């Protein structure tokens, strides 16, 4: 029996119970007290995230599976993000696929129809193992999302050696439900029946505790769940059909039945008759039934008189559905097998693990000298980096058109846009920045929120809600824990500044390489917003380039420094500049002044120019017009925030409006249709091979 409980925690359990727990009871406590389910090392700090607002309908109240905000016309948007990092490291196909299945079930457990998925993938170098991981992660996501008919509308794909052994696979999902039909995940009254739909099998045993420790290198394949999207599709369709007839819905995810039942009871008690659980294999032991994490199962709390009609809907599809127990007033969670007690523990004990606040210490920042690199060499290295190439190889494997509502499709803009049933346009974007977070997690926490805000502005949308996912190494290491705290502070501060509520989130610790080094801190946010007036549809044509905002010579924590090393300043996040610049872009879109625009982020100004060059256009830049630094490498590769690159036929309008709003915007050059080349002042850099690489890199490597 592998447990992740510490000695102290085991002592607490023994003391509260006044006896030695049975093996099944240890497993139960292990699952519920796992970092994955209990947030014991993160909860204290997560409480600082601003989770309320006038538009919030349901927030990160304990044990609600996802948060919800008002999007008008009686509709609520449900949003959630989650990772499947450890399973994907071992079995990338099933790990990624079950990540999609799990997030979809979180959305339907609110009674909401899933309308869009995003996937944010981070892998290491593209050697044989890296290729195997990436190919299978992408096809696993496609396999599940395509089969259930939910479009994958956007995402990120980044390559960084910090993820060699521990890839990050984040998936987010948005769903829509009528405001007054949101179903809770917890019950408030005893006497309800517990109804379980779906077979329980042998896969994913102890998955929650597996996800809460570092990868051991031993055979842990038994902790990975197997994906069955066909069953997933049935459970989505039927759950949405019966959502109005049940009192609470909970997805069976980490910790299986143990966690679902205990969290649903929410301080009340429950009795579960394990012999009634429909099994995929005979002879599954009662202990295994409790903690199995087989996918495609849902738990419902149902009024006794409605059990039959609920299960009848599942049986139409030959899908198993059984009444397995009930919610009791006595605050104890009891699992029985043919009447014999298997585990019997107080609800209170299971739901309140001792919280941890670990020692924290900022790692000293080594000041390295700036690197001098020839401009041509730097352009070539940055612009051919896999992080910046076309991701068509990946997104063409996803059915991003199903649902007939994908307005801005993958590869077309900085944010995905989908049409809601009320006709409004919803913009979605996920952002993370491991380079900056490795330098300064606090500035980075702010920066990723600001970047998501800018990304939404590029399509004409303003953020209304965000969810976060905090991915770090072992929290018991002081440098890791400090980064975690700093990142939460940064995210919290920026969300407060933009008045965007954080309606949900997850934490994933213990992401390390095989030598025990933590991954670069990788907090990630997913922001949702509504297009306020006009929607921007990017198209590249001849015109003037305007750079909105100031370019600081801050090259540490950029793609440039990841490639070339070297130091320099770390970017500070000046939220006011992000806000004003975003306001200017949204105004420009609404007044028809923008033909194409992009926020300046990975790869700096050079990176922002690449999509224009890739369309076969040439760009002339006058470097003196890029203001804020005299350093040429800084001008081209700094990733300092608050900036947009805009293609327009009316540059004067931007300069004038920027001045009125309190920022600067300058016409920095022109776009013309005479082959792919970059002319910087008087020097010409041919771009043909870079453009060729842009389109062929992923297809050719994989």
């Amino acid at each position, binding site marked *: 029996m592998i447990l992740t409980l510490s000695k102290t925690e085991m002592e607490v359990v023994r003391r509260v119970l006044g006896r030695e727990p049975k093996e099944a009871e240890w497993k139960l406590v292990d699952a519920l007290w796992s970092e994955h389910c209990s947030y014991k090392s993160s909860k204290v700090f997560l409480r600082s995230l601003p989770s309320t607002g006038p538009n919030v309908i349901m927030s990160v109240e304990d044990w609600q599976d996802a948060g919800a905000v008002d999007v008008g016309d009686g509709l609520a948007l449900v949003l959630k993000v989650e990772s499947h990092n450890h399973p994907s490291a071992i079995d990338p196909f099933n790990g990624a696929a079950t990540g999609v299945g799990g997030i979809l079930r979180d959305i339907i457990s609110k009674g909401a129809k899933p309308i869009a998925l995003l996937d944010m993938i981070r892998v290491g170098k593209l050697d044989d193992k890296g290729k195997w991981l990436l190919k299978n992660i992408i096809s696993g996501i496609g396999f599940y999302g395509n*089969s259930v008919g939910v479009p994958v509308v956007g995402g990120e794909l980044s390559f960084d050696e910090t993820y060699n052994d521990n890839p990050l696979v984040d998936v987010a999902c948005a769903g829509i439900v009528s405001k007054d039909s949101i179903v809770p995940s917890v019950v408030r009254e005893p006497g309800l029946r517990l109804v379980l739909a779906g077979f329980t099998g042998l896969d994913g045993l102890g998955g929650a505790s597996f996800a809460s420790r570092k990868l051991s290198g031993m055979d842990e394949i038994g902790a990975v769940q197997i994906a069955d999207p066909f069953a997933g599709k049935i459970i989505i369709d039927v759950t949405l059909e019966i959502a109005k007839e049940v009192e609470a819905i909970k997805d069976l995810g980490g910790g299986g039945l143990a966690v679902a039942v205990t969290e649903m009871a929410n301080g009340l008690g429950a009795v579960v008759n394990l012999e009634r659980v429909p099994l995929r294999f005979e002879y599954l032991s009662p202990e295994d039934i409790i903690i199995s994490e087989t996918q495609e199962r849902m738990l419902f709390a149902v009024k006794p008189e409605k059990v039959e009609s609920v299960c009848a809907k599942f049986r139409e599809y030959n899908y198993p559905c059984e009444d397995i127990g009930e919610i009791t007033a006595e605050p104890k969670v009891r699992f029985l097998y043919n009447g014999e007690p298997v585990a019997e523990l107080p609800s209170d004990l299971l739901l309140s693990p001792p919280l941890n606040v670990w020692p924290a210490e900022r790692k000293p920042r080594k000041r390295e000298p700036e690197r001098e690199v020839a401009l041509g060499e730097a352009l070539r290295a940055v612009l051919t980096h896999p992080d910046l190439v076309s991701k068509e190889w990946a997104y063409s494997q996803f059915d991003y058109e199903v649902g007939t509502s994908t307005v801005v499709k993958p590869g077309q803009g900085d944010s995905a846009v989908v049409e809601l049933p009320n006709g409004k346009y919803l913009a979605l974007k996920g952002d993370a920045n491991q380079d900056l977070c490795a330098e300064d997690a606090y500035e980075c926490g702010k920066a990723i929120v600001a970047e998501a805000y800018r990304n939404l502005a590029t399509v004409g949308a303003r953020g209304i809600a965000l969810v976060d996912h905090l991915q770090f190494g072992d929290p018991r290491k002081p440098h890791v824990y400090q980064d975690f705290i700093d990142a939460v502070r940064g995210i919290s501060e920026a969300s407060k500044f933009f008045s965007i509520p954080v309606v949900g989130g997850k934490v994933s610790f213990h992401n390390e390489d095989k030598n025990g080094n933590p991954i670069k801190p990788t907090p990630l946010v997913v922001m949702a917003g509504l297009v306020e007036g006009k929607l921007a549809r990017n198209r590249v044509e001849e015109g003037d380039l305007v750079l909105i905002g100031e370019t600081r010579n801050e090259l540490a924590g950029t793609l440039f420094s990841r490639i070339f090393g070297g130091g320099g300043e770390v970017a500070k996040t000046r939220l006011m500049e992000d806000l004003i610049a975003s306001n200017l872009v949204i105004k420009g879109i609404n007044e028809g002044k923008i033909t194409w625009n992009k926020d300046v982020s990975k790869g700096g100004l050079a990176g922002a120019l690449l999509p224009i060059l890739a369309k076969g256009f040439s760009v002339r830049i006058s470097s003196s017009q890029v203001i804020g630094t005299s350093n040429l490498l800084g001008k081209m590769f700094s990733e300092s925030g608050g900036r947009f690159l805009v293609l327009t036929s009316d540059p004067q309008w931007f300069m004038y409006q920027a001045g009125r709003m309190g920022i600067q915007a300058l016409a920095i050059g022109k776009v013309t249709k005479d082959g792919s080349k970059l002319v910087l002042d008087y020097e010409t850099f041919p771009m043909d091979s870079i453009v060729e690489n842009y389109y062929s890199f992923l297809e050719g490597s994989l």
Partner: protein
Amino acid sequence: MRTAVIKFPGTTCELDVVKALKQVGAEAEVVKFNSLDPDRYDGVVIPGGFSFGDYLRAGTIAANSEAMKGIREMADQGKLVLGICNGFQILVESGLLKGALLPNLNLRFITKWVRIRVRRKDTPFTKDSKDVLFMPIAHAEGRYYLDDEELASRLSVFQYVDERGMPSPQANPNGSILNIAGVTNEAGNVLGLMPHPERASFPSISPDGSRDGLEILRVFGK
């Protein structure tokens, strides 16, 4: 036209098809696979998705299900039968259309907007259609194959073409013989195609604001 849009377990596009059919004034409704009464409808659409999880082979289980008896009956009566993507795979597997749909040559799922040329305008679906239509495909098994190339050419209604309207190898997304994107039966009342007309029926989601899918779906509005 009263049109049944069939939902098998695993079908994903039924609501999209109904939404698009409403654009042309069809009386369309979703009908569960086990409750189709062929006498109540004048036309039937088998939408895309992964019927029965596409276990065994895409479309096989659905093709052998009870529901296909009703659809075959409708086909025999000369009523309109349209299969889109997985629906095309089901029609081929059930023998209502000739040929087979094999895994794409690059062996992976592919979503892409493509151009297709309408090669035959003597079917009820294509009678008044434009010559070239712009629509998305989204499939892993869409490589049309029939060992009798002459017959394939005769039955083929749609052909993948490039921007100049030519059926070039570059325009062929999956390796179909003769760039075939869709075929009909001898009588012309059963049509199957891999591209999704329902996804090309709304200007807001087409890359160029077109709605070419309606060229094919319009017949259900009559």
